């Protein structure tokens, strides 16, 4: 049975054109005008783009199902226009064995709302002491390795991980944080934390590791992806590394280009995140980095936590905020970029970094998998926590009016979101 998306504007890496898109058997079968099919789905006034890929999603399952499950997180992803998400490894147990990675992948397939792509740990239990079985995990399909939530502190271990990763042809994704400099930290170190009397997370704790790993990348030649860049100086370091031709990529999160550390003056732990919200100058630098290609991708760092966890005192509450269902709107509304640039940051660039280009982020053209998102770039909506699909409610954008909303999402030709409603 064929389905035709009627009346939309197709935008992909090849440009922008008015066209209908016909899907059949999980594939795009035709792109053109006045296409006919067994079923027509309205895409009028909407953008038809390759599905988004989130390089940084915490799905919490296994182990923290009170915060999110692979099913609820996948639903949030699909509603946000994502057809693939890279599941972060800090579950309980973590992604340091084939069994856990296989479980996460299978639960993702069962949910059937987006492709759940497990990352693997760099070190056993993300403890930073012993390498995880990276070759075994690669055999199980893992191409992106990270201890996210923790940075790999030991420079010798990180050097060995990069050398080993180079041999396997996989990418290491670093959470850049020198933990000795951030012990007990609650928020960005600066004038706001000084006034509020909260322990600071200094920018240099990120920048030292960005610098170290860029130099290890230079030494080893391994592919390095830098997670959630948050400081102006980090962006400068990555820009210089790219100018030197190093195989370095990076991502930034919507909250790091929309919110500042002043949000913590409310003492609401919903604004606690790691790395922390920084300053207006950092936001400007992140935006410049996204605009000039220094930062390759927008990643959500979707990090669900149940209300009782976020109602704890600031220093005890866990860091993290929801992101899957608001990323597109914030990218459209806050970056000042045109839609092709926004789509590149959400779709083909992250797909390439995650090694998913064969299935996601590809051109909207006949013969490619029908992993697509259809969104209305002008629709204004209000973020209402209770209406989000995530099992948790910790969005920092509650009550905010934003522009741009996903209307339909197709996973392997199947409509998993239709007219803004999840279909499963």
């Amino acid at each position: 049975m064929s389905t035709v998306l009627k009346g939309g504007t197709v935008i992909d890496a090849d440009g922008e054109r008015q066209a209908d898109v016909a899907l059949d058997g999980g594939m795009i079968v035709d792109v053109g005008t006045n296409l006919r099919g067994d079923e027509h789905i309205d895409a009028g006034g909407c953008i038809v783009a390759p599905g988004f890929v989130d390089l940084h999603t915490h799905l919490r399952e296994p182990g923290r199902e009170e915060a999110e499950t692979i099913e609820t997180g996948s639903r949030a992803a699909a509603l946000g226009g994502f057809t693939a998400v890279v599941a972060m490894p800090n579950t309980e147990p973590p992604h340091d064995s084939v069994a856990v990675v296989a479980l996460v992948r299978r639960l993702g397939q069962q949910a059937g709302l987006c492709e759940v792509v497990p990352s693997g740990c760099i070190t056993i239990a993300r403890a930073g002491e012993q390498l995880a079985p990276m070759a075994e995990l690669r055999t199980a399909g893992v191409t992106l390795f990270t201890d996210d939530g923790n940075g790999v502190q030991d420079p010798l271990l990180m050097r060995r991980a990069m050398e080993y990763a180079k041999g396997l042809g996989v990418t290491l994704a670093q959470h850049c944080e020198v933990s000795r400099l951030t012990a007990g930290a609650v928020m960005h170190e600066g004038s706001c934390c000084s006034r509020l009397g909260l322990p600071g997370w200094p920018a240099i704790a990120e920048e030292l590791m960005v610098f170290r790993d860029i130099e290890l990348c230079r030494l080893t030649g391994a592919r390095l992806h830098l997670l959630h860049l948050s400081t102006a100086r980090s962006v400068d370091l990555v820009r210089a590394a790219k100018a030197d031709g190093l195989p370095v990529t990076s991502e930034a999160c919507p909250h790091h280009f929309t919110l500042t550390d002043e949000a913590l003056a409310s003492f609401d732990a919903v604004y606690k995140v790691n790395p922390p919200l920084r300053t207006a100058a950092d936001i400007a630098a992140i935006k410049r980095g996204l605009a000039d290609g220094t930062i390759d991708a927008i990643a959500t760092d979707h990090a669900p936590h149940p209300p009782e966890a976020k109602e704890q005192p600031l220093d005890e509450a866990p860091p993290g905020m929801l992101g899957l269902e608001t990323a597109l709107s914030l990218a459209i509304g806050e970056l000042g970029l045109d839609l092709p640039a926004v789509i590149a940051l959400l779709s083909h660039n992250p797909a390439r970094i995650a090694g998913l280009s064969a299935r996601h982020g590809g051109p909207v053209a006949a013969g490619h998998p029908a992993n697509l998102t259809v969104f209305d770039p002008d629709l204004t909506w209000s973020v209402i926590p209770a209406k989000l699909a995530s099992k948790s409610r910790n969005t920092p954008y509650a009550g905010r009016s934003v522009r741009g909303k996903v209307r339909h999402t197709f996973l392997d030709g199947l409509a998993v979101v239709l007219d803004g409603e999840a279909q499963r």
Partner: protein
Amino acid sequence: MTRHLRSIDELGRDGLIELLDLTDHMVEINQRPIPKVPALRGKTVVSLFFEDSTRTRLSFETAAKRLSADTMTFSVSTSSVNKGESLRDTIETVAAMGVDAFVVRHKSTGVPWQVSQWTEASVINAGDGWHQHPTQALLDCYTIRQARNDPSFEGLHIAIVGDIKHSRVARSDVQAFTMLGARVTLVAPPTLLPPSLEGWPVEVSHDLDAVIGDLDVIYLLRMQRERMGEALVPTLREYTATYGLTPERAKRLADHALVMHPGPMNRGVEIAVDPADLPGSVIIQQVANGVAVRMAVLFHLLGSPTGLQGGDT
């Protein structure tokens, strides 16, 4: 009238002066043969102390009792918090018993603001993290004003000496002293200052000897021994030698200069001279005024405008 007292900022200059003026009445009550008035009869004040502080808790409870409020104490060592109950559940449970004011002390910054979201009662901050300790600042201002017999702080030079970075007392005192017109100098090594002083209306010195002769008030902060593992100062001995009030330094204080400390003192560390040998010490007056100031705060938040006319009980 404000509903809570969580920070000096929130109180503002007018509120601060109003409370200091009100404290005069409370001092007078405390001097009566029977220092008790019925002003808050029927009101319930709950002390929620998630962090040990005997002196602040006793001061608040004494203040509440002198105004005839009923008091309840909730201290963490005996409470359901140790059984895993969340802060919110604790507040909502205690509030359900009928509470007019919570006096909250917590090791974490911001808890009084969180508490005020979960209850209709007034919230009084008795110290949150490194952030604020507004009643300490009030009693400090009152003590200075009483000792000088002058409500204006214009032209007054006050140095706050020691661990500013981790001090809620310093954050509240800087706001309160400068609101009243004082010139404030923070004296500490850079390791004991906040990472940024942007927006703080203060001067900074790393040399106590350079400023001590110019001071009207020297305010010594407690040097916390438990922080010695954080590489903030090499040794306590070196701290005392560079920032402590030693007998030699005490001699260089102006005759009229006041010596203050929020307590408890580390004898031999920040204060290496017997306070009895310091004619300008008002450290005991600070404690005494603490009760009167807290009476003023409780009355301001919970009392009726005519409540002090009630006479002795």
